[in-house]
């Protein structure tokens, strides 16, 4: 039966309930449709954080435009006590406060779902679906009544709907007030007004709707000591812990917050108590070519330095990456991928810089690329990147993406072993240089002394008359002397290849995702980065349909030998990637000699994070009905 709202403020003809409202406990998707620049971000974060504090796994996605103010922006929150963190199609509850996008927004609501809107003005009839429940709240009217300052009216509108949600889906109000208190610690005068706004919404909802709805939350103890953090914060923090002292960068979405995080923490943790001076330097360069040049100069001179960028920056840095590869200078880059090519969709995610990074620059080059899937891995791999760059004297790219970098993710807490020491690699100091001479040995910058392709270097100024050498992008002999001799050149290129081989055992090993229920897997999946969330969920769904898969999450290029083993164990593999051209598949075939026929590409490249449904449907489609049978028999 359709209940007409009795809102004291306005009555919207459309404010009624559908025959059946969906029922769901702790498994739902709530989506906020806002206008950017209206201060909704803080309110929406508050919502997600509250769910998190109720012990429920939560995964928010910010879907924002490449502009600053006035365009539609969405915040999609998946809550799942099953622990699924991937995006899920279909919105159970849409908080639609942006008239521009309402037509689109209402279509996204699942049948029987809920549509919360500002009922100050009556609802446009085109928006009415008879299988959706409409929750009208006169947000504007309430704000007009409550606040004088037009900007406060706009700001608190957001807090009010969060208050309403607390009533509607049963968020513990104390959790919200506690969060407000935390947030405005020190600025106490801000606390009361925010709590008041929450109450306004809470009360309105409780008064006008029978709360809680069929979709609601209940406290659980499912997040343990996990944290809710963005990958860029974690990467920036990783650079702090790894001992990076020089950061050179050029602003670009979605990587900007990596260096911003580094600087934020450096201001707190890297000021010399005695002098108040900085134990770090951050330079906003004039462009990406300059940024990577500074990083290479600093690393050449014995500091740990890094830059953060995105696709266009990688293209601009490629000449310098070739220099660092060939001249063997360490460098650390964090590439937070966005949708390419060119400027593409700067505020959407993708995994399409893999080839550009692995083979960056003209000539024969190969670069170490690390592939994190979680904020914790963003932290760990960034730390590791500095050790690898120093040890192998070559650029190392930490390949993140917009989804991982800019969205909050539920992640294992960060850890640091205080016994850990930085591995600065093969660097000779004055004493060692003198010892060498005593042994009658001559220092050769590019001599493969240890037969692992990794040579010894010295820092400028290390010794008054020993160990100085000339670094260059041109061909040179083992003693760093310029040469155009073909054999010397080829030997050096072979050694660089050997060095890359050596790196295989030093990079992080892939992570296996076990088959569900102690079955034998009848197919395998290879993936990297943020595809892991959808694949984890898809493996459960597939198992439910009798398709048992195991999976391997690749963590680095060059490929660890475990990748080879995994591939050998399977006849048929799906390679899941968020790009158009199957870039990981290309690397697997060309670097490991895997028969392409063995690798089926499963691609997602529309800029939105991968969903489990997409994985399941593509795999089912590909297996086809009959295969599916045979698979089931096979069990």
């Amino acid at each position, binding site marked *: 039966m359709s209940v007409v709202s009795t809102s004291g403020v306005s009555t919207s003809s459309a404010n009624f309930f559908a025959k059946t409202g969906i029922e769901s406990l702790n498994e739902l998707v709530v989506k906020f449709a806002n206008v950017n620049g209206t201060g909704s971000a803080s309110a929406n974060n508050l919502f997600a954080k509250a769910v*998190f*504090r109720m012990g429920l796994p939560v995964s928010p996605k910010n879907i924002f435009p490449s502009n600053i103010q006035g365009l539609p922006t969405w915040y999609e929150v998946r809550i799942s006590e099953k622990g699924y963190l991937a995006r899920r199609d279909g919105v159970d509850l849409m908080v639609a406060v942006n008239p521009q996008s309402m037509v689109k927004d209402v279509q996204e609501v699942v049948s029987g779902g809920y549509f919360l809107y500002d009922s100050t003005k009556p609802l446009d009839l085109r928006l009415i679906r008879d299988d959706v429940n409409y929750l009208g709240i006169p947000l504007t009217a309430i704000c007009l009544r409550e606040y004088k300052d037009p900007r406060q009216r706009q700001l608190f509108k957001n807090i009010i709907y969060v208050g309403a949600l607390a009533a509607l889906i049963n968020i513990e109000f104390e959790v919200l007030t506690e969060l407000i208190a935390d947030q405005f610690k020190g600025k106490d005068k801000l606390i009361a007004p925010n709590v008041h706004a929450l109450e306004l919404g809470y009360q309105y909802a409780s008064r006008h709707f029978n709360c809680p709805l069929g979709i609601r939350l209940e406290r659980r103890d499912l997040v343990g*000591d996990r*944290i*809710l953090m963005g990958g860029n914060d974690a990467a920036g*923090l990783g650079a*702090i*812990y790894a*001992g990076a*002292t*020089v950061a*050179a960068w050029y602003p670009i979405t979605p990587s900007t917050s990596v260096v911003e995080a580094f600087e934020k*923490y450096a201001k707190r*943790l*890297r000021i010399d108590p005695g*002098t108040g*001076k*900085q*134990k*770090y*330097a951050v*330079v906003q*360069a*004039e462009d990406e*070519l*300059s*940024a990577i*040049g*500074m*990083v*290479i*100069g*600093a*690393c*050449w*001179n*014995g*500091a740990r*330095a890094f830059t953060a960028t995105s696709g266009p920056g990688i293209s601009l840095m490629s000449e*310098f990456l070739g*220099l660092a590869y060939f001249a063997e200078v360490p460098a650390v880059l964090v590439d937070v991928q966005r949708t390419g090519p060119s400027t593409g969709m700067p505020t959407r995610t993708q995994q399409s810089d893999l080839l550009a990074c692995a083979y960056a620059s003209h000539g024969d080059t190969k670069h170490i690329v690390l592939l994190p899937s979680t904020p914790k891995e963003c932290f760990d791999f960034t730390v590791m990147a500095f050790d690898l760059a120093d040890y192998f004297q070559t650029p190392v790219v930490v390949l993140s993406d917009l989804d991982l970098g800019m969205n909050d993710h539920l992640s294992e*807490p*960060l*850890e*640091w072993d205080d016994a*850990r*020491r*930085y591995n600065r690699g093969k660097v000779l100091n004055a004493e060692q240089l003198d010892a060498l001479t005593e042994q009658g040995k001559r220092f050769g910058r590019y001599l493969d002394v240890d037969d692992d392709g990794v040579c010894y270097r010295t*820092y*400028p*100024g*290390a*010794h*008054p*008359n020993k160990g*100085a*050498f*000339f670094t*260059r*992008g041109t061909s040179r002999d083992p003693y760093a002397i310029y040469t155009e001799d073909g054999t010397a050149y080829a030997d050096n290129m072979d050694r660089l290849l050997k060095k890359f081989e050596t790196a295989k055992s030093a990079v992080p090993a892939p992570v296996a995702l076990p088959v569900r229920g102690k079955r034998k897997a009848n197919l395998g999946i290879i993936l990297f980065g943020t595809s892991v969330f959808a694949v984890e969920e898809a493996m459960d769904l597939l198992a439910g349909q009798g398709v048992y898969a195991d999976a391997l999450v690749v963590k680095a290029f060059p490929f660890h030998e475990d990748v080879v083993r995994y591939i050998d164990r399977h006849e048929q593999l799906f390679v899941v990637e968020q790009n158009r051209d199957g870039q990981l598949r290309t690397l697997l075939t060309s670097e490991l000699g895997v028969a392409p026929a063995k690798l089926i590409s499963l691609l997602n490249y529309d800029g939105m994070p991968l969903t489990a449904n997409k994985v399941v449907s593509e795999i089912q489609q590909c297996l086809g009905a009959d295969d599916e049978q045979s698979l089931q028999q096979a069990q």
Partner: protein
Amino acid sequence: MSYLRPNFRHPAAPVNRIGFTEKDYEGSLSTLCAGCGHDSISSAIVSACFELSIEPHRVAKLSGIGCSSKTPTYFLGNSHGFNSVHGRMPSVTTGANLANRDLIYLGVSGDGDSASIGLGQFAHVVRRNLNMLYIVENNGCYGLTKGQNSATTDLDSTNKAGVTNPFDPIDLTNLALQLGATFVARSFSGDKEQLVPLIKAAISHRGFAFIDVISPCVTFNNNPGSKKSYDFVREHCESTATIDFVPMREEITTQYEPGTTQDVTLHDGSVVRLQKPIAGYRPDDRRAALNALRDAEENGEILTGLLYIDEDPNDLHDTLNTLSTPLNALDEAALCPGNKTLQSINKSFQ
């Protein structure tokens, strides 16, 4: 192939304050053309470092790509060097300097390297007032790629390939002054009397020091329009369309008094008129320097000498307020906040 100086060491060679002879500041053999101005600059650098009693290993030499950028191999053999990529020496030097503020940074570049592909980096390293000596070995052409015009080539001058330059040259000293450089000078490769003291002053300057050194390219600044233009050998090479004949040339030297102007005849007979500011010139007024440059330009003269200096500016480290200890000397203890802090950071994300 030309030598900076004979390769034997005189027993009684004079030593400097720290007991080094001038030879200790030399590098490997130059592979530049005989008589190339760049070699004169290299030997001026050697003399300057010798006279300043600098420990060679405390110098880091950086460059881009070009004949000029090759020269760091030909001086200070006991210093680390970095021959980077074309036009990007400024950024690499910036990073190096940030990593270790205690070394002396000597950047060598060419007019193509700095005024064309590298103009953006040049402008921004000036703006940051990086503590370094930046020398442009300015021959008004692209030497290493066989003599194309550069952005500092004189208007209407014709190069060896017969291409006349239709564009106004960029005066890098002028640009450096505009962009706030704290030490700006110009000299001529063959004028050791002027060049060596300028290099010494520039090295001693705490901040960005720029020297634009006019350095004739004996091979490609070979202007057929000049009076010596009838030349059997050139015609021979022209008609065989091969420009691989490079006559052996003597280095061009000159010497003249402050306040005077001096005509220097280049290998092809063309003449540059150099001017030294009068004794009373006070290089502490940026605006005066800019006007002096324009005056000289309008008289078809090239103003040389120390044009401007700001005695005690803030360099990039002052601006960033970095620690006096070089950043590359800090270890885990100094840099890593440790697990306890990390756990409290975790809290802030819960």
